[in-house]
């Protein structure tokens, strides 16, 4: 493999990894526009409870997450196979979900993987298909630690500090 093709592969892997980070940011901050932008318009998603087109998935998941108190997704173990303008990826996710059951706050800790197909069109990589697989999960009653904590607690768009920092030119 030439030095150039190794560099091109490295650049492609970085771009593809950032798709998952933007996907997580979009879910965690309830950023519909950002979530839409990581899929091709003709893309598809299979999340088990939902399977269908990417735009319909965005509607479904935004509605689901809006009903929860908070969501935080970490991604790791990103393994990408490149084949020209197509790529396949396995991406681990760890999700921390905070929601109420019968009026009482609970934490759900869940882990799984995304099995992805990506496509490069006009130089831009996006998700063409994402399947979400769950590996394990547990739900437990939680303390309401957010009460009285003030402004350094995560929030949704546009209230999260991420967006206010952006206005100040501090964060993208």
């Amino acid at each position: 493999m030439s030095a150039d093709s190794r560099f091109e592969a490295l650049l492609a892997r970085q771009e593809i990894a950032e798709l998952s980070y933007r996907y997580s940011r979009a879910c965690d901050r309830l950023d519909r526009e950002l979530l839409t932008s990581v899929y091709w318009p003709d893309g598809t998603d299979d999340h088990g409870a939902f399977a269908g087109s990417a735009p319909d998935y965005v509607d479904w998941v935004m509605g689901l997450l809006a009903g929860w108190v908070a969501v935080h997704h970490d991604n790791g173990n990103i393994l990408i196979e490149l084949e020209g303008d197509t790529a396949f990826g396995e991406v681990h996710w760890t999700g921390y979900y905070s929601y109420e059951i019968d009026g009482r706050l609970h934490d759900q800790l869940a882990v799984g993987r995304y099995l992805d197909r990506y496509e490069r069109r006009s130089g831009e990589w996006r998700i063409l298909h994402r399947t979400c697989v769950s590996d394990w999960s547990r739900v437990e009653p939680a303390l309401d630690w957010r009460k009285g904590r003030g402004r350094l607690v995560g929030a949704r768009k546009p209230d999260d500090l991420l967006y206010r920092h952006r206005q100040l030119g501090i964060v993208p």
Partner: protein
Amino acid sequence: MSDADPRLTVLADKQEIAEVLYRYARGCDRADEAALRSCFHADSRHNHGLYEGLSHDFVDRAMAIVRPLKACKHIISNMLITVDGDAAVSECHYWAHHRRINEQTGREEDYYSGGRYLDRFERRDGAWKIASRTGISDFERYDAPSDRGMWQMPAEKIGAKHPDDPVYALEASLRGGK
């Protein structure tokens, strides 16, 4: 590097910035004050939890918190970094665990915390370091600890503080030290 493909210099910048973020986690986990301090420019500002002030003063507080911990782990992920010349802005995720003493009960507890760092990085004298940091909490949990499992293992198989943890001997071995 001046005539290199600008996409590659950005990639190299992102890698250097990522390693500063990882070094911060190591600094906390191993109570390695030099590693922690090396992540911040001298004038870096810090806004995290109840603390607002200079990052180097925050390091003093962080060391006082992590030194007595029986166990401590920080995982950094989801780095979204934008580079603009010698400045960069970054959002990354952290997940942290502290096995600590609950001050009210005097008993051990497991404290879990997930959140994000919003950072401004600056490259000065060729080195990327944090110029300002805001820490945001997304998730916290407090649980009674379990003593099943790893605490029965030999001490040398359990993570330790600087300089006793095996990572320091491993790194020294590459430099011909051990």
